[in-house]
């Protein structure tokens, strides 16, 4: 069936701010949906409150509403825009729940708005576990035994029925498994049940037989109106059942299933999708299989695009959200083209000839007393994906992608391994399980032993054991006598030069990664770049989507166009999230507009930047020095763009400088100067710009001396961090000692700064662009919360609501002076503290695009990220229309993950804790969005 002509305007509901369990994968799906619908000629109206998304850019939809995601907003929009249909499957559970609620009150029907992409009843079936269960029974799909409880008493009875603890609880209708978990013992039983009942909007929890330790699988499906179903991707979880799939290491495709077993999953998935409705769109099904038997149970089904479908799209090259949108408006799969090959049908199942590994990224270090054990409630804040020709290669690359200072899966520095500790760490699921498994093998454990403890499938264990075997073999050599054959094996298994350097170091870390690179370059051992093509090379493909591997043949042909490499921002984490991806995507678009071929390097599968339609060439690779350098050596770009990828890209600046790779825009030395808190303060002194009294130190003793000079309270800041990592306010000496010791543990090599903390100061963020001649103030944001609360965690108002013109002028003037002195070409952000006596102090400066760039762009309508990028590439500010469209005020409201961590106290300080933000347009200060945070502004300030 061709597309529907009875609808003109489609309302798309976004997913709102980034929270744990719902991240930028929905910007990716939403963006694809917008493009997909627009190219079919529909009028797209979008609602999303998240300013940091690409989907909310003016060019994405015909009308964008940056409004709170509430039923009231949707109704208001429908009044004005009169949509014919609503597509609620691209905005995660948030959008589905909104659509469901409005359906429940009969709104869609009353307004004659068609719900497309899902059957609205389907949402109820899949979310109401009891109904879902009944349906599965009807169609003969096995499930684990379970029953719904509405009270604690009922819960107790059910546990009796199921034969006692452990049991699994799942509250109905919650996001990312909120409030769910495994109950191991009687002590925690009541607490967890009550919490689940409270969190569930309908106050129901499902109590399930525990299938902890079973093998877990996922399938991503698409179906059209003609009931054709295809499986886009199969995923096998490395972590067995018991860990939320968002927190699990997962692998695509399945590795340990025979065809008969896999087809059983496929048949069941199709049957399940057909049983829940007749909608055309995407769907995700999760299964568990019992080890030792062939028993297969269905775990859940999600009738929408999801985190997994974003992963599946990146893993296979099949754009699920884009195609799902086309199906929603009436196309059938066989009427659509496979966009990768360009000449085969979209109605097929991708075959891949590589292994994809996803590893989640956590931020436990940011929260005191957090329970790090993984369970059925998601705790990860982001994830990385890696592609290799083999599992070991992909696993090592994933660890290089995580940006936690690792060169791969271990083997990258001295670690004292204690048998008992490793064993203990393995008995429960923790975030670093794959590394601990490696450690266990390093200590001589057997595959059987590790399997007994962890229940991880022996095939995966065997692969890690092989990696350790290579490590052990390598340790016997010096770099010079390392046999070529072994070096090839190591590189094929994904070992970084840094790991090999460490393994061949016998006196501390005397061998450098450059030495290893030199050795392999001499041998002609270079990375090759293979294509992601959905068809295992069966057909020629046109999409320039690459990954590196050590093979005989590379497929990435280098053009003779002038090119620029844009480094992505890696996995989402607190302090560095979607805002930086937003700027990366704009940088790509801007560089394209200026005639450059754009090359994107990133490893975050949730993002728009890793959509293969964004840059001219996408390298899905770790933003890790060696991998980036391999690509640069191959592509030979004019330069690299470091200002848009957050701290990730900046961290590599030193290496670029050292290897004579041109950095575009602001010179390296001056970027570095701004990062080095000590040097920067000296510059401010020269410029006659006030800053809080400070001192620098390398040690505890030094810190105490400085503190005596500048006076408590002290703000302690390590250099080269983002999101205020490790920053603390100390009000007395013993606190200072403790914090300094913490910093020394995590950042031992850098000087750290001790500021006198400006109490009762107002904090202000100024974002600007400087082209060497002219300064453009993009936005001045006044924080509601006092200085001391990280700017990312603050409620910020644009423009300032209570500062005098004089103070504002002073800040503009200081910003200009700093930009000049740093020879900024591109972005600059300066944070100021304004004391009650109206004195303006510089707190810090960042010569790069910051988190607030997208917020300002959305508030003012000026495409700041693009403008900044063009300036980096040599354009002048005078070429652009920079007039703001903002009337009244825009307010940025942070969103925190404290509901996921009930054991953590809500405290705000100089270390960032929020995962996302929303934008709200403010007309007057009586508005709740201003009044409420204003009232609470001092409440949570802590250390």
């Amino acid at each position: 069936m061709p597309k529907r002509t009875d609808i003109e305007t489609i309302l798309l509901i976004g997913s709102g701010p980034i929270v744990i369990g719902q991240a930028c994968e929905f910007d990716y799906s939403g963006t694809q949906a917008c493009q997909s619908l627009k190219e079919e000629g529909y009028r797209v109206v979008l609602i999303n409150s998240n300013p940091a998304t690409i989907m909310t850019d003016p060019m994405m939809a015909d009308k964008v509403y940056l409004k709170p995601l509430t039923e009231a907003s949707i109704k208001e929009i429908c009044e004005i825009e009169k949509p014919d249909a609503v597509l609620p499957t691209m905005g995660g559970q948030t959008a589905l729940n909104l659509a469901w609620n409005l359906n429940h009150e009969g709104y869609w029907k009353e307004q004659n708005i068609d719900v497309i992409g899902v059957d609205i009843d389907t949402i109820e079936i899949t979310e109401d576990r009891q109904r879902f269960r009944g349906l599965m029974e009807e169609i003969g799909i096995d499930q684990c035994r379970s029953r719904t409880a509405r009270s604690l008493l009922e819960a107790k009875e059910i546990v009796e029925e199921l034969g006692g603890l452990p049991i699994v609880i799942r509250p109905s209708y919650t996001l990312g498994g909120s409030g769910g978990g495994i109950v191991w013992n009687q002590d925690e039983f009541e607490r967890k049940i009550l919490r689940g009942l409270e969190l569930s909007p309908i106050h129901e929890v499902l109590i399930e037989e525990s299938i902890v330790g079973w093998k877990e699988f996922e399938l991503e499906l698409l179906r059209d109106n003609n009931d054709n179903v295809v499986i886009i991707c199969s995923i096998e979880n490395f972590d067995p059942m018991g860990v939320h799939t968002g927190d699990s290491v997962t692998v695509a495709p399945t590795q340990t299933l025979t065809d008969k077993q896999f087809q059983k999953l496929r048949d069941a998935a199709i049957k399940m999708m057909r049983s829940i409705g007749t909608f055309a769109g995407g769907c995700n099904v999760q299964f568990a299989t019992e080890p030792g038997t062939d028993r297969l149970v269905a775990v859940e089904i999600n009738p929408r695009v999801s985190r997994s479908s974003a992963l599946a799209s990146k893993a296979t090259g099949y754009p699920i959200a884009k195609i799902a949108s086309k199906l929603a408006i009436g196309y059938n799969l066989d009427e659509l083209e496979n966009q990768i090959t360009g000449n085969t049908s979209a109605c097929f199942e991708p075959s891949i000839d590589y292994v994809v590994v996803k590893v989640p990224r956590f931020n436990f270090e940011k929260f005191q007393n957090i329970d790090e054990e993984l369970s059925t409630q998601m705790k990860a804040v982001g994830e990385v994906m890696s592609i290799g020709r083999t599992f070991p290669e992909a696993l090592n690359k994933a660890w290089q992608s995580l940006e936690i200072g690792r060169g791969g899966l271990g083997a990258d520095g001295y670690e004292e391994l204690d048998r008992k500790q490793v064993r203990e760490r393995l008995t429960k699921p923790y975030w670093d399980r794959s590394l601990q498994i490696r450690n266990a093998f390093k200590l001589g454990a057997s595959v059987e032993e590790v399997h007994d403890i962890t229940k991880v499938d022996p095939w995966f264990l065997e692969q890690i054991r092989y990696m350790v075997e290579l490590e052990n073999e390598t340790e016997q050599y010096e770099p010079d006598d390392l046999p070529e054959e072994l070096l090839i094996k190591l590189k094929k298994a994904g070992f970084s030069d840094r790991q090999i350097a460490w393994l061949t170091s016998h006196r501390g870390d005397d061998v450098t990664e450059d030495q290893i690179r030199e050795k392999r370059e001499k041998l002609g051992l270079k990375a090759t770049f293979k294509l992601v093509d959905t068809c295992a090379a069966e057909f020629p493909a046109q999409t320039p989507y690459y990954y590196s591997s050590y093979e005989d043949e590379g497929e990435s042909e280098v053009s003779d166009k002038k090119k620029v490499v844009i480094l992505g921002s890696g996995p989402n984490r607190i302090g560095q999230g979607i805002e930086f991806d937003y700027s990366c995507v704009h940088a790509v678009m801007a560089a394209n507009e200026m005639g450059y071929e754009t090359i994107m390097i990133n490893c975050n599968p949730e993002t728009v930047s890793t959509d293969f339609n964004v840059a001219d060439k996408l390298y899905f690779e770790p933003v890790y020095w060696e991998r980036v350098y391999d690509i640069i050596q191959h592509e030979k770009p004019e330069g690299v763009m470091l200002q848009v990828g957050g701290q990730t890209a900046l961290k590599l600046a030193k290496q670029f400088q050292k290897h004579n790779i041109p950095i575009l825009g602001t010179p390296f030395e001056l970027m570095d100067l701004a990062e080095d808190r000590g040097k920067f303060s000296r510059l401010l002194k020269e410029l006659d710009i006030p800053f809080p009294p400070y001192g620098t130190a390398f040690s505890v003793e030094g810190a105490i001396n400085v503190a005596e000079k500048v006076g408590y309270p002290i703000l302690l800041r390590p250099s080269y961090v983002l999101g205020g990592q490790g920053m603390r306010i100390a009000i007395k000496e013993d606190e200072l000692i403790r914090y300094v010791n913490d910093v020394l543990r995590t950042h031992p090599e850098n000087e750290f700064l001790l500021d006198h903390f400006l109490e009762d100061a107002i904090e202000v963020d100024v974002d600007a662009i400087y082209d060497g001649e002219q300064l453009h103030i993009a936005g001045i944001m006044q924080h509601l919360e006092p200085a001391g609360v990280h700017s990312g965690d603050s409620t910020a108002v644009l423009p300032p609501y209570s500062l005098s013109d004089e103070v504002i002028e002073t800040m503009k003037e200081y910003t200009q002076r700093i930009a000049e002195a740093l020879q900024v070409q591109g972005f600059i952000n300066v944070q100021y503290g304004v004391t009650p006596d109206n004195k303006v102090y510089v707190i810090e400066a960042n010569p790069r695009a910051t988190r607030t760039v997208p917020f300002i762009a959305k508030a003012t309508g000026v495409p700041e990220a693009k403008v900044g990028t063009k300036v980096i590439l040599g354009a002048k500010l005078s070429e652009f229309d920079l007039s703001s469209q903002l009337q009244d005020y825009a307010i940025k409201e942070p969103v925190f993950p404290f509901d996921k961590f009930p054991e953590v106290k809500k405290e705000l300080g100089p270390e960032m804790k929020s995962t996302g933000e929303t934008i709200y347009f403010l007309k007057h200060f009586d508005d709740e969005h201003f009044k409420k945070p204003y009232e609470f502004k001092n409440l949570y300030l802590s250390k």
Partner: protein
Amino acid sequence: MAPSQTAILALSDGTVATGTAIGAIGTTGGELCFNTSMTGYQEIFTDPSYHGQLMMMTYPHIGNYGVSERDNEASRPMVAGVIVRSYSTEYSNTMADGSLHDWLKNHGIVGISGLDTRRLVRHIREKGVMNAVISSEEPDTDKLIQKAKKWPSMAGLELASTISRGQPTHHGPDEGLRIAAFDYGMKQNIINKLVEQGLRVTVYPARTPFSEVEKTEPDGYFFSNGPGDPNPMEYALESVSKAIETGKPIFGICLGHQVMALQQGIAVDKMFVGHRGANHPVKNLKTGRVEITTQNHGFSITQDAVDESIAEVTHINLNDQTVEGLDFKKFNGFSVQYHPEASPGPHDSAYLFEEFCRRVERIAKSETATAS
């Protein structure tokens, strides 16, 4: 973990790749083809249609789940050799009887691992199918290239009868409708699927004289899949025409589809690169539905070759529009190019066995009615 003896793969156009020997030590040759199915290596290696071919799996990790008796499509591996990127000697699966490694070795199958299979797939895709030789004993690459050059071409090669069973075999219930199946390299799962329909199946050696088959009064005839070129299979064409004369329903899969078409004068040509995988979209033109299918063929029929008065094209491949299914006009027969029995692959097309069974039942019933 892997045995470290070197092996060489030499293609007839002079391309050479070096890797590690797997399976048995020795030298082997055949047409180099690839399969893009990500699961089911054992079913593929034992598929009689692959007789005489060197099978290169595009999915890099092979051997992961070992081997199991229940995954055999024939009692032994049928491929002439195997080529994989990364070979797992250690395996993990509840249902496994042993490792792929021991299995290949015990059956004397020579293989090679650790080479850039993707490069070779791209090579064949560009240059077309060609013969190759794998050796873990001959280090001289020139000699191996010569050997590959001299290896007989698949075109014009009649292979079906060489792997067909020696004696008729009986499957399924003792009573019920009878199907006579001609074995040109019949996969076990086709037999299973027919039996699942309640049919009594007798599988005959390829060259069994039709008169002998007819004596048992079958209610329907089946022509199986198998290796090689259908064009020289005169004996099979003769069986088809005699089966047509009986007026009984006829069903053909793959090579069987091709011999049925040839008998009706429809041309079957060798393809530049065959279809081998478990993800090919086939559109059923009668229902408009799309099936994801298992494919394994190096010869095919183009839509132009089909005269409307002879057969209706019922299925087409959505990737290259080649004919995937025919419903014959002049007799009660239909056939498909792909593999509805799957194994390995999706189960979307199992309805074809029901369709065959329905046709057989209908004719049997009407005959009974006429007789009484």
